[in-house]
């Protein structure tokens, strides 16, 4: 049991240490094996928490509020499993698409450190360690963003790192204040203390500080400007990994900290969060509609989808959180798959400009089909995964009478469909426009290694959409676990009951 909870940290660290190996091929093989094992371990953890309840490890054997606990509850299990799957898919995709000159700069070791940061953020049960995990993620992702050293990369990377450092500082201040108020940083202990003696004044301030700190990480309106400035600059595999997972860690932290620890204080912020959610959705999708570059368009969609996840916090019912967890899994899969597709279109035609792309439905019909599935899922068409997530969210909105946000969410869905159709007509349907210069690779074909990760992700999207019941149950367990964290608190603070 012990080793399972530690492995999601050790395996990515081993990828990091593979920087010692001189030969690039061996380094890559080691990384892929570790990513595969990581995926297996994460899936196993999900099964185990589902069967036996919350799993806890007190690192170093120091008992709970004093040591650092590693905790896997249902929510963490779901997040770990999905990040493990995405990690392996991106690993395979990188092997197929990342140019050798990028790999020279220790690409996989950095990838490993980033995965370690992500897993650590999900698995830790300690507020300060969550901060450390964010720093690990920030450093690794900053280097991955700027690897290659092109001018646009440095420019984007600078904005990225500056805004994220501000976020980290606010997070650190908030964590310090929390310790001053409650005298502990262990999340289970904090949740227990805040439930017993709520402190409306300072508690609300703390919740607002955490909202800003995680809001920057999650690209919430009006703090999202770093994202469209930087996400289209690195190699596409990196963009896919960032777009799929990084902002979602911010949302996960909001759920874990705001919803689990400060639920009463959050009540004052709920109207504000709903407004922010609506604005995030609208601004994101309008930004996307206006874009003419494949990756930038998808980047703005990340922001728009974050709005839906924020909406769940604004509504704060078990139903809305269930929908949000479902939606989170869906959006991670769909977003990564769409970025993969944009990368493959670039492989074939050498550009990301929508105007210059075209004719891919004839040249690569399989790719067109994969895109269509992922795009329809993102827009929320049945029977794909996006439909159920949105349905649950909207139904919970109607149940508590928040009609405005529901109307906005539906309108944004329509605009999402429009911008996906824009990509479809520009990239796949219209004939290839006459180029000034010859195409770099007119006869290039996609290798199976490039298509396989997209295929698997799209397959998962369909599977979750068609067999929605198991996923719904997982999401519901995760939502209940966050909203009423009794079993979480007991498992961490009373050793023996969680085993």
């Amino acid at each position: 049991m012990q080793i399972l909870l530690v492995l999601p940290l050790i395996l990515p660290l081993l990828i990091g240490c593979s920087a010692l190996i001189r030969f690039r091929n061996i380094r890559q093989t080691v990384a892929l094996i570790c990513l595969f094992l990581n995926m297996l371990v994460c899936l196993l953890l999900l099964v185990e928490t589902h069967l036996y309840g919350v799993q806890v490890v007190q690192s170093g054997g120091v008992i709970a509020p004093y040591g650092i606990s590693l905790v896997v509850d249902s929510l963490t299990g779901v997040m770990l499993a999905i990040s493990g799957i995405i990690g392996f898919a991106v690993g395979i995709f990188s092997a197929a698409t990342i140019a050798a000159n990028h790999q020279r700069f220790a690409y996989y070791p950095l990838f490993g450190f980033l995965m370690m940061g992500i897993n650590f953020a999900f698995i830790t049960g300690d507020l300060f360690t969550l901060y450390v995990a964010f720093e690990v993620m920030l450093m690794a992702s900053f280097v991955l963003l700027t690897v290659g050293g092109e001018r646009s990369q440095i420019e984007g990377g600078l904005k990225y790192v500056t805004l994220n450092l501000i976020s980290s500082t606010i997070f650190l201040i908030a964590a310090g204040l929390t310790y001053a108020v409650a005298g502990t940083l262990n999340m289970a202990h904090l949740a227990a203390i805040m439930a017993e003696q709520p402190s409306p004044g300072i508690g609300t301030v703390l919740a607002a500080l955490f909202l800003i700190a995680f809001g920057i990480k999650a690209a919430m309106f009006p703090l999202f400007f770093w994202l469209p400035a930087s996400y289209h600059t690195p190699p596409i595999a990196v963009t896919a990994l960032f777009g799929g997972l990084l902002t979602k860690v911010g949302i996960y932290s909001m759920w874990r900290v705001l919803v689990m620890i400060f639920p009463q204080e959050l009540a004052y912020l709920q109207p504000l969060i709903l407004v922010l959610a609506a604005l995030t959705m609208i601004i994101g999708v309008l930004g996307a509609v206006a874009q003419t570059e494949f990756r930038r368009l998808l980047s703005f969609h990340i922001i728009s989808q974050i709005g839906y996840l924020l909406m769940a916090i604004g509504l704060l019912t078990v139903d809305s959180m269930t929908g949000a967890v479902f939606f989170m899994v869906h959006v991670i899969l769909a977003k990564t798959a769409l970025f993969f597709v944009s990368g493959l279109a670039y492989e074939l035609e050498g550009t990301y400009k929508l105007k210059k792309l075209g004719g891919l439905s004839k040249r690569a019909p399989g790719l067109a089909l994969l895109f269509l599935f992922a795009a329809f899922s993102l827009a929320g068409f049945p029977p794909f995964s996006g439909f159920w997530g949105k349905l649950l969210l909207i139904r919970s909105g109607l149940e508590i009478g928040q009609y405005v946000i529901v109307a906005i969410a539906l309108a944004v869905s329509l605009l999402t469909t429009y911008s996906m159709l824009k990509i479809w007509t520009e990239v796949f349907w219209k004939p290839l426009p006459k180029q000034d210069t010859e195409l770099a690779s007119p006869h290039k074909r996609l290798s199976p290694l490039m298509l396989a990760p997209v295929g698997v992700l799209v397959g998962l999207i369909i599977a979750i959409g068609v067999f929605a019941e198991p996923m719904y149950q997982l999401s519901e367990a995760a939502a209940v676990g966050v909203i009423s964290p009794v079993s979480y608190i007991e498992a961490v603070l009373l050793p023996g009951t969680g085993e």
Partner: protein
Amino acid sequence: MTRSVFFRFVVRVMLPVLFIFSLMLMLRGHNEAGGGFIGGLVASSGVILMTLAYGPDEVRQRLKIDFLRLMFFGLLIVILAGLVGLIIEGEFLAAEWWKPVLQGIGQLELGSPLLFDMGVYIIVLSVTSSIVMSMADEGERMDD
């Protein structure tokens, strides 16, 4: 890089003192003020002094250490220290002690926390040194 004879002389005298002091800080760290992090910083201040006195190229030639690679060895040692506890006691990062008695000297207390500190020492030393050396490289280029 400086040509000052006095500075170079002081550096030569100070180097062994700094390194021994850093090792001492690391070894006492578990029970008293000190530890791998502080020790590593003190040791890297020795490397910094050398870089100031002789320039980065000569330091690389003399030390023959690739600090970038050394950093990852440190990381491996840290992971290993965590695994020792996991394998013996079933608790990740748990402290395991080995106390051999040496004739005439006394009892030694070796354990996985010391291993962990050594890893941290190596990481801090190599990270700081490689940052300073690459900054010194940049400085040399500007001087030219």
